[in-house]
């Protein structure tokens, strides 16, 4: 089966006054049909910019400098803007962290949804409204007909995120990119949204890229996980493998920094040091300054190793435990 999305050697850079900032650095990955892929990393690791790059939403001074983004076999980077507009919002949709920033506060939810329907399909206002109402009902918003006339501020945070998901679903896209969509929500509401997303993705056969810093959420939702550090994917593989037997020291560092990783009351085990500034990353493995396993060879570029469905970039990976 061909993947929905095949990203090859993607690099996105920001030309700032202080130099070239490599936000995404030679990133390659695929997303299969109906697959839920988690993209995790700390702030500044480039995970959001990866999502923006796929949709062509990187604004100057940022620019995708090289690579290919094959969506159903077509390279999105070579596509003229007009053609890209028929993909964005229709075949690939995005959900953002804060729906208050993406919903227009002075237009009713219905107006915005109808606009989205009519942007891609030549349908009557009545039919567009009908489709919008159905989409709201689908994501579990009570009395969708009346709610179409409400404004974004009249919804709670969780309901607003449901509206954003409904808008993303309007055209039944092949791929949804969700950028920290539940980070601002409470635990019980987050759980409701994860439940709905998982149900809808299965129901409509959508692929999903779930960008998050919360390993717990990704563990519960995703099939596969990719770990980003300093603009690169340092480890990728099935959730069950990566989060239970990490090979890259950064992944294992992240996992042992979680409070649940040590007995109650004992000191936590943070990764020493800080993430390097994206303007002055060390050569070779960017993690080597914080890594206990680092040796001299780490100042050269570690190659991508692929073993049994697992990919990682490290000279000194944790050994695979015997099965």
């Amino acid at each position, binding site marked *: 089966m061909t993947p929905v999305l095949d990203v090859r050697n993607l690099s996105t850079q920001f030309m700032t006054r202080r130099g070239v900032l490599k936000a995404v650095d030679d990133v390659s990955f695929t997303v299969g049909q109906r697959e839920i892929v988690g993209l995790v990393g700390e702030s500044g690791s480039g995970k959001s910019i990866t999502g923006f790059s796929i949709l062509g939403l990187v604004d100057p001074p940022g620019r995708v400098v090289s690579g290919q983004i094959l969506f159903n076999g077509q390279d999105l980077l070579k596509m003229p803007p007009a053609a890209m507009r028929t993909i964005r919002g229709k075949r690939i949709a995005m959900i953002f962290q804060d729906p208050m920033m993406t919903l227009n506060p002075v237009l009713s939810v219905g107006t915005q949804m109808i606009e989205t329907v009519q942007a891609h399909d030549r349908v009557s206002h009545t039919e567009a409204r009908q489709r919008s109402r159905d989409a709201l009902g689908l994501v579990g918003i009570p009395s969708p007909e009346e709610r179409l006339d409400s404004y974004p501020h009249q919804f709670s945070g969780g309901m607003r995120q449901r509206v954003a998901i409904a808008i993303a679903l309007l055209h039944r896209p092949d791929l949804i990119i969700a950028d920290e969509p539940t980070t601002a929500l409470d635990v019980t509401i987050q*759980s409701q949204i994860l439940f709905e997303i998982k149900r809808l993705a299965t129901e409509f056969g959508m692929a999903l890229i779930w960008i998050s810093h919360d*390993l717990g959420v990704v563990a519960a939702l995703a099939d596969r996980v990719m770990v980003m550090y300093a603009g690169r994917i340092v480890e990728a593989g099935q959730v069950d493998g990566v989060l239970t037997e990490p090979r890259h020291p950064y992944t294992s*560092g992240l996992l042992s*920094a*979680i*409070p649940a990783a040590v007995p*109650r*009351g004992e000191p936590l085990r943070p990764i020493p040091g800080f993430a390097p500034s994206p303007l002055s990353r060390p050569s070779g493995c960017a993690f080597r300054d914080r890594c206990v396993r680092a040796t001299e060879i780490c100042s050269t570029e570690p190659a991508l190793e692929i073993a049994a469905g697992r990919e990682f970039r490290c000279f000194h990976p944790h050994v695979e435990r015997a099965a």
Partner: protein
Amino acid sequence: MKMPLIEAVNVSRRFSRKLDHAEKIANLFGAGLEEKTVHAVDDVNLAVYPGEVVGLVGESGCGKSTLGRVMAGIMPASGGEVCWQGRPLMALEGQEKRDMRLAAQMIFQDPMSTLNPRKKVIDLIGEAPKVHGIIKAREIREYVASLAERVGLDASYLDRYPHQFSGGQRQRIGIARALAVKPKLLVCDESVAALDVSIQAQILNLFMDLKREFGLTYLFISHDLGVVKHICDRVVVMYLGRVVESATPDDLFDNPRHPYTQALIRELPSVTDRRRVFTPIKGEIPSPLHPPSGCHFHPRCPKAFDRCRGERPILKPNSAGHVSACHLNDLPARNNETATAEPAI
């Protein structure tokens, strides 16, 4: 029994919006508009003993931050009273009042909005101890440098401004500022919520080291049950302005008694305990402007019955050090149910 360091006794905090002129005029014509009142904190009792780390958890709008502010003395209570070492805050005067204010310090979620962007680190940390006569003006640099070092900031950064630091470093500045006046109680309001997991672990370790070193007491407000479970001696769960359950972390996580606590723990995403099926509790968190009658949780509660709609449950002890506010406590069936670790819902 020891005397609590700080105790909230039947504390309530209401916020109301006064009617504006147009609404008053409308009322003259019989519009019948009333002031809108939010009961952010509704008749809460909470004692924090010296050396204890008490976690206050709940979802947004449950009043945990308001309760923290009232207890730190930076916001007056609208009902009930806060006692500092057994004496009501309202009764404290002069030097005693100033001492209490210094002894209870707050650390906030977003250090960027609580650090003056026009001041250097040395002034941010050094101003309060200078003003309060804890140190002499010429000792500032030395004093601030030692504090900075203690919280893990390089002493060569003292002449920098807050924007020149990363999020984790800014939080360290906020902690050093609180420590500078030699407090006894730190109220941490979501102090690690905005930090990446690795930095969060560094700051949590710092909190625990400081507790041992300075004998601090913490009121740790957080929505993150994982963090609270790890560092707290006692966890207090709030829902819509009221305390619904309080217990030691082990007891609370192994044997939650209130259906809300049970839901919170069940829905907590975890790396170690992977769960592919979500069973969320229904419904939204109700508006605190119009809280439901009786038990505030009853519209979302899978076990609600008639009594929950009409009568407010009071906190009752379930076992030593474990209290919960739920009418199910009074049902005889309750005792059988505890035999199974995970109640079937």
